[in-house]
């Protein structure tokens, strides 16, 4: 239960940063916090009490005493995708800084937001 609360708080804090912050890099930081929160939430959904990791490294491990492997596989993918999005976002931030010499959203707005 605690995990859920932690994860949801992370998501909300991240979204707050994205919605209110004026600094481009801060917004990207917010996005990555949201990502972390979603990943944590997903892994906690797959957790099973008193179970082991889903790896048959020893013969004594049995399938009915393992956590759900699917969320782990999905989160693995999601983490990598999050990194890709962050990288592209930062590239765009560098481009924007190059043009405007500032990271402040209010000073950048040429197009209507």
């Amino acid at each position, binding site marked *: 239960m605690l995990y859920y609360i932690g994860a949801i708080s992370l*998501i909300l804090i991240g979204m707050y940063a994205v919605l209110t912050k004026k600094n481009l890099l801060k917004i990207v930081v917010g*996005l990555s916090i*949201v990502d972390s929160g*979603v990943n944590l939430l997903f892994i906690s959904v797959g957790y099973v009490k008193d179970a082991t990791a889903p790896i048959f490294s020893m013969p004594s491990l049995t399938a009915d005493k393992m956590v759900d492997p699917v*969320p782990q596989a*999905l989160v693995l993918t999601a983490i990598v995708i999050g990194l890709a999005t962050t990288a592209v*976002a930062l590239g765009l931030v560098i481009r*924007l800084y190059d043009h*405007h010499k500032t990271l402040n959203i209010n000073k950048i707005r040429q*197009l209507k937001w």
Partner: protein
Amino acid sequence: MEFSPVLYIAIPLFAAFLIPLLGKVSKTLVKLTPGIVFLYLSYGSILLFPKAMEKPIVQVVAGFKPPFGISLYYGATAAFLITMVTIVGFVIWLYSYKFIIREPIEKYYMLFMMLITGSTGILLTGDMFNMFVFLEITSIAAYSLTAFLRDKDGAEAAFKYLLIGSFSSTFYLLSVMIIYSYTGTLNFADIAGKIDLIPPMAKGFVLVLVLVGMGIEAEMFPLNGWAPDAYSQAPSPVGAVFGGIVVKAGLYAMIRIVFLFFKTPEVMQFLIFMGILTLLIAEMAAMRQHQIKRMLAFSSIGQMGLVIIALGIGTMGSTSAALFQMFNHALIKSLLFFAAGYLVFHSGSKQIEDLEGLGYDKPVTSFFFAVGALAIIGLPPFSGFWSKLLILVSVAKAGDIAILLLILTGSVIEAIYYLRAVVKLYTRKEVPDNVRRTPISGLVAMGILAAIILYVGLYPGVIEKWLAPAANNLLNAADYIKAGLF
């Protein structure tokens, strides 16, 4: 080797991996590759299309039966839309051939190929998380293409798109998670059978998450803030990519999920309501635009609103009309973007005002623009006429006069601003001699589109006969479940 639906995803991807190596040999090879890819995919469409119309082809990946492995569902609707994507993709490639002259050309085609991979993936996949992956591929390619010109506004539009797009994918991922946690499966058909395991509260939340997540890609009001900037700041062929491919894939994903999991009268009413809002607000906004590409972008949002209304009515007739409209819109909007791209290039300005007199200076390009404008308004003898007529008829049959009037209002506004632009184009005015010519590949691309638009307008039967199976496939959830789980 038989042509299998997975090749729609694998071949463009293969090409994207191959292009950097080809780039070491020659630039011409790089430029030709996407064309070959599209020709091959069209050949595949010719083979598979009739089969899919009779019976959906379900293809497993990695040899595990669904729901354990990922399966691809190539049903009638997907076949219809993928054929559309191949046609539009091919002409966009043809147009880009001479239009994209800025380096890095290789990267442009790589991004383009991966965007095609992502869109066909969204259309084909039968797995909810897999759809997320393809959604991300499509969006990241779209962000990068938006900023391809590397100017101030392009980067800004791309960043804005990225922000909204990240929210979209986060929401979608959350919905996948909630669905998985209750049903224990990710396959669409399997979920649809177990959807009642989800308690009502969570189900409502999932619905909202999906509508918001996919509504952003499908340009539904009020989530379409990214569209006008992205369309107008990206290179013109990319504008056509958005209008013709990305948005259609997003809308298909949203409708597929809603029709499979949440098809209740209230949800359909809500879709109609959102569609009307999208249509009217976008058309009103388009009226006020001074930049031609922004006008086209808002018109595109409006058209999506029209499609959403038709889908929301949810009868057989209205759904097939909506699919027809999607097809027509993809072709016509691409034509308009192509023509507008060169008109902007020739006049050196994005403003509608500055188009004055170009109709005499650049007759062929302007003629194509006019054809597109008349077609999208819905005048005969162009294809847009039939789809709009079908939508109006189906709305009238559903007996909702208010919606009918609202759609007509939207269409009238649309007609006004398109005709205004066309009239501007043909206002006689001395323009300074312009030596720049529209290259032949661009003209051929526009010619192909115009020919298809006219041909379908004269013989709507060629498309119409495929609409019934496609609409049936979209509406009939029970068949989907049966085919998807075999």
